[in-house]
């Protein structure tokens, strides 16, 4: 028996922090706060610019607080159509895209979660989907397919191509696999078929996983801008993110090449610093509002996915 052990067993020892440890904590605090600030301040800056008067904003004098507070940029936007029209397109995209995605993923995750013994053709489906995860036709061939399907310039070009996502299906499939077999067998004993079991047993239990997939899909559709630029011929049909990108990208892009002088002039106005900042901030708003949910479910999804390996 050494004295160290005796000490631990008798009284709780007060552990004094060494000075170097205290210094470390201070430095740690400074570093982490600095990093956190880099993740907040840029957005505060954009908000401040959007609420400032134009000349100060243009001159670059605005930092984190508005100069010459004015809501002109936001009022201007309410008057103009394009910004909110693109929000409408994005909303449409969400309303169509998310249910279709979820439906396809649920329907395919269920059979794929069965054992090979129960579902002999599973191996073929695995290979079928696996290939698509690694090979892709690339930009041009996909564009041609969409053009030949006559869905260019429609909402379907945004919703259908990525409607089935093998990764999300795998997520749900793994979740289904962890559901105890007894529940399914009980359902069968009660006379339920596969579809009933899926609907009445698996779905209610999978709410957390479904919520995660829902949010993944939501963020994907809301943030996706490149496909809008590629597949929509008229800027009026752009979803929000694509519309925003036209304000930001240098003038050598497809959209401005097709515009009339009048439209270009309007683009100039709308790209104006304060108005542009207002649009950026408004686009950030929905994500900021649901951020608590987003963060919680994303973290859960990531942790489960990584811990399970």
């Amino acid at each position: 028996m050494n004295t160290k052990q005796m000490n631990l067993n008798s009284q709780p020892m007060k552990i004094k922090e060494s000075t170097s440890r205290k210094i470390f904590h201070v430095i740690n605090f400074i570093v982490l706060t600095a990093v956190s600030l880099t993740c907040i301040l840029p957005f505060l800056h954009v908000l401040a610019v959007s609420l400032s008067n134009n000349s100060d904003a243009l001159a670059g004098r605005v930092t984190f607080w508005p100069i010459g507070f004015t809501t002109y940029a936001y009022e201007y936007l309410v008057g103009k159509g394009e910004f909110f029209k693109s929000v409408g397109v994005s909303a449409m995209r969400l309303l169509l895209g998310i249910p279709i995605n979820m439906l396809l993923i649920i329907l395919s995750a269920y059979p794929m979660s069965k054992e090979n013994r129960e579902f002999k053709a599973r191996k073929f489906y695995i290979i079928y989907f696996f290939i698509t995860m690694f090979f892709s036709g690339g930009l041009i061939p996909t564009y041609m397919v969409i053009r030949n399907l006559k869905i260019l310039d429609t909402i379907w070009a945004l919703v259908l191509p990525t409607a089935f996502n093998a990764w999300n299906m795998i997520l749900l499939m793994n979740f289904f696999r962890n559901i105890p077999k007894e529940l399914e067998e009980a359902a069968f004993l009660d006379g339920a078929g596969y579809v009933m079991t899926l609907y009445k047993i698996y779905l209610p239990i999978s709410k957390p996983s479904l919520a995660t997939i829902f949010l993944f899909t939501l963020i994907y559709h809301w943030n996706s801008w490149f496909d809008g630029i590629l597949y929509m011929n008229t800027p009026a049909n752009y979803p929000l993110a694509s519309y925003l990108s036209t304000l930001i990208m240098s003038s050598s892009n497809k959209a401005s090449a097709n515009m009339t002088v009048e439209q270009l002039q309007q683009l100039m106005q709308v790209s104006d610093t304060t108005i542009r900042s207002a649009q950026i901030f408004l686009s950030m708003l929905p994500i900021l509002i649901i951020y608590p949910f987003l963060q919680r479910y994303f973290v859960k999804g990531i942790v489960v996915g990584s811990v399970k390996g």
Partner: protein
Amino acid sequence: MQIIKSNERKKNNPRNTTSFHLMLLPAVILTFIFCYLPLFGLVMAFQDFKPFPSFFGSKFVGLDNFRYIFQMPGFISSIKNTVIIAFFKIILSILVPLTLALLINEITKHVRYKKFVQTVIFLPYFFSWAILGGVMQQLFGFDGMINDLLEALGISKILFLLSNTWFRPIVILTDIWKLMGYNMIIFLAAITGLDTSLYEVAKIDGANRFKQLYYVTIPGIRPMIILLTILGLGSILNANFEQVLILYNPVVYSSGDIIDTFVFRLGIYNSQYSLAAAAGLFKSIVSFIFVGIAYWCANKFSDYRVF
């Protein structure tokens, strides 16, 4: 007893799997249309493709398209840029989140602050480059906030997004900034999953917090570090397209153009469909090799399974 028996027979009856096939049908059809059909369309990489008469009428030219793109200097420099960006991105996308996770893990008392830091660092991940591009322009533009700061400090303004010295570092750093929350969370999860008794043993052996970090924490999450590095290597060629497309301009092509943006201009603006398809195919093949090696290594060293 008899009722149960007949139910069991029903379950093993292969006829029941029709519902499975039906359930998978929509996904199969969609995948065929949007993944496999374009794959077949890749044949245009080997053709002198003309929109009329399209695939069946265009002349077959073998590897000519590939030969041609490899002697385009823009393509070669885009490969160079892609590799440079990917190289730094892989290293930093492990080091930065890892450091952050370790630092955050050292906070034991102030739980609210700890949660605040994690929440805030994860925030940029959720915004698309359509939004972040605008933010970057606002910050790094000629009249932007950073240049304003430089002026106040007496330094002359820098054309960040228009300079071949600064563009690439900004692309790399802002991408790390956007993504650091993601890996940080994975590392934090791995750290909290470690066996706490290991720390007690180390304490008894006289290790202070720093030594504990070095001898317990880091070796403990080594598998995760290796796994994330390997997976990152797998996507070495695939990152940054949207970011570069939003931020770049002709002035910075020589340092900022990546393979994907080069292919994009080639195919969409110059309508050189065959060349673009060839370049894209080349990248896909190399990418596939990297991803394949990555998954094989991950499987071998960390028991990582996709299916």
